[in-house]
């Protein structure tokens, strides 16, 4: 474990350039200008945690196994441009990232383009002005942009996920700059996602480690099956890690209009997941031809070449939530594969 010793740097106030040059020289940041984490700003950020210990260890983050305390998280939150009201969301996101099922060592070190998607649920999304409407995945909203960016800065500075050393991603991804969205609870016909996975607190966050969103466009369908056939088609692609790794999840971010069409025909979240499980399939023989190495469930290895196989091993791996505004574009977020999503309550 690496606990970084606090250091104070004195910067002449006269030049913003000098400050940014210091960040670059130290190898800090994501390449974009950052806010100086002065003592006052860090203390203001920590005020969101009230009297809780600023030096309490929240997480140890691999591959560097750096220690994230509230203070260290606050420093990165200031650098990313967060406001104090976003701080509990960020602290909770870091807690979720350190859950063993996330497999953060693999997520950070793989050659894949994976980035942790942070989904904000419930009251915290409203209170923090997170965008769950038009343009929810960005750009343009301070809360989404800066909280997502702070997650990345912490992965870089604390976890050591630096391209070339701790992050071996072959091409990287724009989702590695900032990847945060809020659930559109008001437009979700099935209630909140967090509650569907057993988290009944008024606010929660989910971390899903996957690719950047893949668009699903359907302007004309009035039946759920027609919309979901297009979702299944987007899920069914040989290039995704889900193809050879059966434990991989999918997050399906339905826009409110697609969700409404499904719901108005009586379809629940699990109906949608079951349908997609049965429709997002490939031929087993073709899959064997495409991938010599297959991380499949034992029963899947017994399938005949003429059988079909789903892109994931069970319907429960297909997760449905609602986000976005008017219009008929949904998206899917395939998984890195060797990881499971985690949902936790928001705690300061």
């Amino acid at each position, binding site marked *: 474990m*690496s606990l970084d010793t606090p250091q104070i740097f004195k910067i002449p106030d006269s030049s913003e350039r000098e400050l940014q040059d210091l960040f670059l020289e130290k190898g800090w940041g994501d390449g974009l200008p950052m806010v100086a984490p002065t003592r006052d700003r860090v203390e203001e950020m920590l005020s969101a945690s009230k009297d809780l210990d600023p030096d309490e260890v929240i997480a140890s983050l*691999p*591959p*560097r*196994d750096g220690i994230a305390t509230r203070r260290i998280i606050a420093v990165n939150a200031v650098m990313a441009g967060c406001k104090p009201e976003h701080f509990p969301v960020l602290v909770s996101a870091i807690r979720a990232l350190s859950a063993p099922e996330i497999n953060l060592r693999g997520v950070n070190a793989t050659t894949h383009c994976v980035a942790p998607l942070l989904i904000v649920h419930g009251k915290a999304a409203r209170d923090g002005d997170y965008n769950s409407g038009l343009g929810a995945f960005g750009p343009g909203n301070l809360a989404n942009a800066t909280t997502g960016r702070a997650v990345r800065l912490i992965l870089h500075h604390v976890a*050591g996920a630096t391209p*070339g*050393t*701790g992050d071996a991603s072959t091409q990287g991804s724009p989702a590695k700059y900032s990847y945060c969205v809020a659930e559109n609870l008001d437009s979700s016909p099935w209630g909140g996602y967090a509650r569907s996975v057993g988290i009944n607190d008024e606010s929660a966050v989910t971390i899903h480690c996957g690719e950047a969103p893949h668009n699903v466009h359907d302007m004309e369908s009035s039946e759920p099956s027609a919309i979901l056939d297009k979702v299944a088609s987007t899920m069914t692609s040989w290039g995704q890690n889900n193809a050879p790794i059966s434990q991989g999840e999918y997050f399906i971010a339905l826009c409110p209009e697609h969700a409404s069409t499904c719901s108005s025909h009586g379809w629940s979240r699990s109906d949608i997941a079951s349908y997609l499980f049965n429709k997002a399939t490939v031929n087993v023989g073709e899959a064997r031809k495409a991938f010599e190495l297959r991380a499949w469930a034992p029963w899947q290895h017994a399938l005949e070449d003429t059988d079909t196989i789903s892109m994931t091993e069970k319907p429960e791996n297909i997760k449905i939530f609602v986000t976005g505004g008017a219009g008929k574009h949904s998206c899917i977020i395939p998984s890195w594969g060797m990881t499971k999503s985690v949902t936790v309550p928001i705690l300061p």
Partner: protein
Amino acid sequence: MVITTESFRKLTEQVAASLGHADLRILSVGHPLGGTSEEIVRQWADDAVEETINLLTGERI
């Protein structure tokens, strides 16, 4: 001892260090393994035998 490919040597060193094994014996072989013919991979393995023995039996540097 760990075997990695040349392109991932730095990453391997960092992970080893983060796990408290900064002096881990690391052998690098050619890159990439995926998509390279079996004949060439076997050649890389043959070429690495002597260094593997040295790393397993020699003093840590």
